[in-house]
């Protein structure tokens, strides 16, 4: 008997919620990015677990879960690069990475 699918989903849910907490509660912008990366990882665990346990109806999409996971990894890399570039730009112009001090567009 294989490990039940629910175990993977629960691990992914724990990782997602830890990441969500980090993204919402961190003061440092880099900490927020760390939280977002954790959330993307949790989504990827779900995609790969569904690929392994549930067969799609059309055989052409046998590998859909893995391909989706690879695209998510690519997007996470692009997101991290842009996010960190933005943080460095903010740090250069405002001398802070505390998101509570960067509230120019907040009303």
């Amino acid at each position, binding site marked *: 008997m294989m490990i039940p699918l629910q175990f993977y989903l*629960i691990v992914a849910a724990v990782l997602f919620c830890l990441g969500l907490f980090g993204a919402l509660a961190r003061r440092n912008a880099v900490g927020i990015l760390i939280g977002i990366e954790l959330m993307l990882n949790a989504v990827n*665990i779900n995609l790969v677990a569904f690929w392994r346990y549930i067969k799609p109806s059309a055989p052409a999409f046998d590998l859909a879960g893995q391909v989706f996971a690879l695209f998510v990894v690519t997007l996470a890399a692009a997101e991290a690069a842009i996010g960190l570039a933005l943080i460095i730009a903010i740090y250069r112009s405002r001398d802070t990475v505390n998101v509570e001090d960067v509230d120019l567009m907040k009303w």
Partner: protein
Amino acid sequence: MLTSQLLTYIAFFVLAAVAVLGAFLAVTLRNLVRAALGLILSFMGVAGIYFVLEAEFVAVVQILIYVGAISVLILFAIMLTRGIMSSTLSAENSQWVIATFVSVLVFAILLFVAINTNWPVSPAAAVSDLIPKLGTELVTTYLLPFEAVSLLLLAALVGAIVIARE
């Protein structure tokens, strides 16, 4: 047969514990360099979970991209913006109570859905010669998203250089 199943279970629980512990350290530690190291631990645990799921290629990509590239990028950003967070200020902002509440609520919902849904699990064996198939799929069935993603990577590359330039 039974021993290998037992070993799979043990591997899964150890790797899941590593991933969750790393994630917990990454979101709670004050020192951001330590938090980033916790994040790397979590990434390694997740890569191990992919190995348990028999998705070797995704596992290796996870180690290469996340552990190898994204963690280094995050550590670089921490080094470049160092010494700015004062030690008297707490690591969490003023809305951390609401954040905890929202996280716990989302976790409860996800847990409910994961356990109460009747997943149509089919106990089929994993695909053999997976990596050649994956390569073929990427440039046939998924050609359009593949090209879109390469364009996105180019845009991210140029954008990151333009934004971070002095």
